[in-house]
């Protein structure tokens, strides 16, 4: 009876221990039970056994784990098994491998984090699809007579426009690169398109061509054939691989363009503007880069789009001098609100005096309104010049066309300037374009100005123009400036106003807001 009881108690031990010593333990019990008879001895025997159980059972379990595991692994051969590490230190090789693995994992993680973050931001702010929608609505507009009017350097009224236009049509000769672009050297190309404004001219931006390209879509001379398509695609892939900053993406885009051609995706594009739009979309599908663009020009492109002439330069200067450097109006409105209507950002070489005088005239204003509703852009240097008046310390001014450098900061503070802390309002319209949009975008992002009016035109003009053949060109961004706000800027989507009103009502709204703000003080 008591032996059976002890045999039962023995089951408390780990199976490993029972396998090895269960029989021996039972035999020891039998031996003792046989020799130790009588009640006191029996009592002592059981006390001994219970004390022994109390001590050894937990201890056996504490030590038994590895044996248990290896026993179970051994019992089921062929099934997955665990190998328990011993107390021994890991081998040096294992430590080195573990270290290398950790570093690799860390690098992979941070790389993915970077890439992933950028892609999300791009998609969020400007998907190619949206941008195309905005393009589609913009271009027909610029083809209309009203827009065509605006698109010529429109500050000046008709006479000066004609003067400017005829000047631009004069024969070509070389000048320095800072010059406004008079790149349309054909005698027939009388209209100086909005984007021929100096802002991009130095870089020969492709956007210059677009109003022209869309002016007569579907016209018979725009028809293209497979040979021309092939020529354009060959040229575009070569230009991408030669000039695009990210080699890997350039390679992928080139591959994609070729694949689309082979598959016959391009066959439906029977005319130039449609084919240009199609190629642009194919490139952006890969890169998400809104600064990439293929454009079509109905009139043959000049051999060298960067080719500028002293005559054209002189004409541009004459135009500026005759038109007060496009300072259309400088005045103080009721409530001591300074009002500056600026229809371009003219080159400082010619217009510094005018600009300084204008800002001096407004220096004591309590608030400032910049009217850029008809401003089609201009010199980045001039954009930065005006921004310098609005800060009391140098401020980073993002420009999608220039690599980040010391010139990326405003020249603040301007000596004697009192405007650094005054409220600023900017009037915008859908014609506000290019350099004027840079002014709007940066001041909005820096929370230095309130934008009132309409979403702007959406011309970042970051691409450098490359001629592909007589009618096609490609704009490829080469600068990689730091945009502190988001990967996408206003390219294709424009700058959204803070207060959305029709452009015609923008001035009245700005005056109301400015007066209200000044009364609060």
């Amino acid at each position, binding site marked *: 009876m008591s032996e059976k009881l002890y045999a039962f108690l023995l089951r408390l031990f780990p199976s490993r221990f029972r396998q090895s*010593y269960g029989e*021996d*333990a039972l035999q020891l019990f039998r031996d003792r039970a046989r020799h130790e008879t009588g009640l006191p001895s029996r009592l002592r025997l059981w006390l001994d056994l219970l004390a022994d159980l109390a001590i050894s059972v937990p201890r056996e379990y504490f030590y038994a784990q590895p044996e248990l595991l290896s026993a179970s692994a051994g019992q089921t051969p062929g099934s997955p098994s665990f190998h328990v590490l011993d*107390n021994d230190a890991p081998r040096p090789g294992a430590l080195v491998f573990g270290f290398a693995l950790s570093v690799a994992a860390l690098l992979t993680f941070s790389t993915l984090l970077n890439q992933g973050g950028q892609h999300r931001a791009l998609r969020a702010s400007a998907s190619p699809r949206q941008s195309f929608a905005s393009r589609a609505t913009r271009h027909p507009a610029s083809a209309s007579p009203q827009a065509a009017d605006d698109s010529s350097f429109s500050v000046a009224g008709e006479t000066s426009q004609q003067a400017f236009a005829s000047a631009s049509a004069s024969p070509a000769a070389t000048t320095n690169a800072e010059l406004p672009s008079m790149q349309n050297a054909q005698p027939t190309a009388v209209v100086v398109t909005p984007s021929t404004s100096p802002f991009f001219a130095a870089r020969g931006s492709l956007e210059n061509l677009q109003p022209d390209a869309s002016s007569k879509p579907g016209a018979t001379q725009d028809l293209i054939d497979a040979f021309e398509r092939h020529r354009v695609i060959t040229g575009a892939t070569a230009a991408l691989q030669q000039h695009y900053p990210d080699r890997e993406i350039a390679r992928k885009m080139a591959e994609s363009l070729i694949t689309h051609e082979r598959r016959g995706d391009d066959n439906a594009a029977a005319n130039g503007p449609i084919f240009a739009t199609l190629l642009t979309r194919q490139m952006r599908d890969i890169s998400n880069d809104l600064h990439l663009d293929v454009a079509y020009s109905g009139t043959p492109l000049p051999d060298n789009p960067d080719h500028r002439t002293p005559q054209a330069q002189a004409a541009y200067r004459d135009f500026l001098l005759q038109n007060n450097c496009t300072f259309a109006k400088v005045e103080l409105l009721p409530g001591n609100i300074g009002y500056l209507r600026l229809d371009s950002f003219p080159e400082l070489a010619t217009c510094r005096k005018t600009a300084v005088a204008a800002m001096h005239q407004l220096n004591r204003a309590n608030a400032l309104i910049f009217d850029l509703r008809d401003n089609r852009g201009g010199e980045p240097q001039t954009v930065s010049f005006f921004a310098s008046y609005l800060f009391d310390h140098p401020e980073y001014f993002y420009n999608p066309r220039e690599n980040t450098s010391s010139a990326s900061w405003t020249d603040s503070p301007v000596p004697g300037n009192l405007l650094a802390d005054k409220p600023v309002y900017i009037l915008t319209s859908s014609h506000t374009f290019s350099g004027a949009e840079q002014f709007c975008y940066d001041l909005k992002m820096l929370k230095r100005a309130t934008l009132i009016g309409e979403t702007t035109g959406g011309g970042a003009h970051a691409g450098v123009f490359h001629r592909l053949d007589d009618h096609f060109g490609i704009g490829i961004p080469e600068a990689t400036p730091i945009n502190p706000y988001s990967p996408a800027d206003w390219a294709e989507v424009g700058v959204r106003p803070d207060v959305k009103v029709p452009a015609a009502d923008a001035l009245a709204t700005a005056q109301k807001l400015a007066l209200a703000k000044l009364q609060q003080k």
Partner: protein
Amino acid sequence: MPKRKLDPLPSAAFQILLALAGEDLHGYGIMRQVAAQTEGRLRLGPGTLYSSIQTLLEAKLIEELEPREDAALGTGRRRYYRLTTAGRKLARAEADRLADLLRVARTKKILRGEYV
């Protein structure tokens, strides 16, 4: 995983080594020998006894012999254990350590002379 430790040597393990110093014994024999050499103060229960034996075997301080019949007890074959050279060495070292302790205790007048 923790390993069974013999440093410091547990008293049960030391008693087993001492019990095996004279002759090879089986489990019950060791238990009786330990009880005898401690005048009945230490009676090893099966759990303590065999876990100590296992530890000592793993440390190669004792070795297991071919099971054989005990003439006096006579009920089946039993596993016998024998002290190894290493075991004997360890037991001697432990005894030396205790002797040192004893010497210290005696100089501190904790022990009366006749006990040693």
